[in-house]
């Protein structure tokens, strides 16, 4: 499995699904393992593992993943449990949610970014108790 700081190149043999440039996937794709996308996906995509969408990927789907790296076109919301890395070639139309987000210079994002939900909740609760006192 891929850790947050590991990249797919080093762990390439543990890739379970590859959606290459010669196929189009339509529907609700659900997997447990690591996924590489280089082709077309329409619908929704869920995985507990690592998701890598390369430059050639064209995704019109909502994504839920463990960790993710986006370098292609994405139309839809993405929710990542761990780290989300947006490459400079990425064009995203949708909301992003992750514990940690890295955005490269040149990436296009049209949507809301939401990070570290647990931390934000903590701050709010601290503020509320101060106000009560």
């Amino acid at each position, binding site marked *: 499995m891929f850790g947050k700081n590991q990249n797919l190149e080093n762990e390439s043999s543990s890739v379970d699904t*590859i959606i*290459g*440039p010669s196929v189009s996937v339509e*529907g*609700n*794709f659900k997997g447990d393992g690591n996924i590489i996308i*280089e082709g077309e996906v329409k619908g929704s995509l869920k995985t507990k593992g690592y998701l890598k969408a390369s430059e050639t990927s064209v995704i019109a789907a909502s994504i839920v993943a463990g960790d993710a790296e986006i370098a292609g076109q994405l139309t839809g919301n993405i929710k990542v449990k761990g780290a989300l890395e947006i490459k400079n070639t990425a064009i995203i139309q949708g909301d992003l949610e992750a514990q940690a987000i890295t955005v490269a210079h040149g990436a296009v994002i049209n949507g809301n970014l939401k990070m570290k939900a647990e931390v934000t909740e903590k701050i709010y609760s601290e503020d509320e108790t101060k106000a009560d006192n």
Partner: protein
Amino acid sequence: MNYYICDTFTNRKKYQKQLSKIELLLANLGIGGKLCRLTVLKNIESLLEEAMEEGAENIVAVGNDQTVSKVANLIMNKKITLGIIPIGEGNLLAPALGINSAEEACRILSARKVKKLDVGQINEQYFLLGLESADDNIVFNLENYNINPLPNNEAVGLYNINISNYNFRSNPGDGIMEAVFAPKEKTFWQKLWHKKEESLPERISVFPIKKMTIKHRKNPVTINIDRQRTVKSPAEVTVLKNQLRVIVGKGIKQKSIAIQC
């Protein structure tokens, strides 16, 4: 009791010396049994029926992948263990199971290390190696999604064991088969046009599959089963986990070539 079923092609003169050597080696190892040769008059169904009536425990396919596939199809759901002695051309399964030669196969049969392998079922037929089609009119319909190959595909397959030339992982004992879509190689002019991408080969697509329906877009497509039989789409495919008991070698090769990113 061991039953050795020799395929029709092993009756050719060039295999006689090898067969005699194998018979001698089996006798020396103390695992000699009934050796049956398939002929035009003796078909595999009647031979296997006879073997089962006589209470055979191990049936050994002496021949190539086609022989193994034929035998495996007939002994499914029966309390029989399959052995393999590879002879002739077209043996991809035996090396994948750690059986590299006929002589080594005899010693492996003697050691009798049994492994349960997955078997695929397509409609009413079983397959051990995989399914293949060269028609990109095919559609893989899974429970929640469809996989549609684009027109630039060269071959489509579903593999239990990686018998193809493509690089992907396959394990015949994990209850999962790999659906593989391989794009056509770029022509010289395409490579020249996209000079930057020349060094990057078109990547194959790989999907883990347990159950699916093979459909078609316009006309029914021909699906090759274990490279010896064909069936037309639509067809229901199911992976039956650990369904066939096979005598294997020590080092089963799980063709596991790293997929380059």
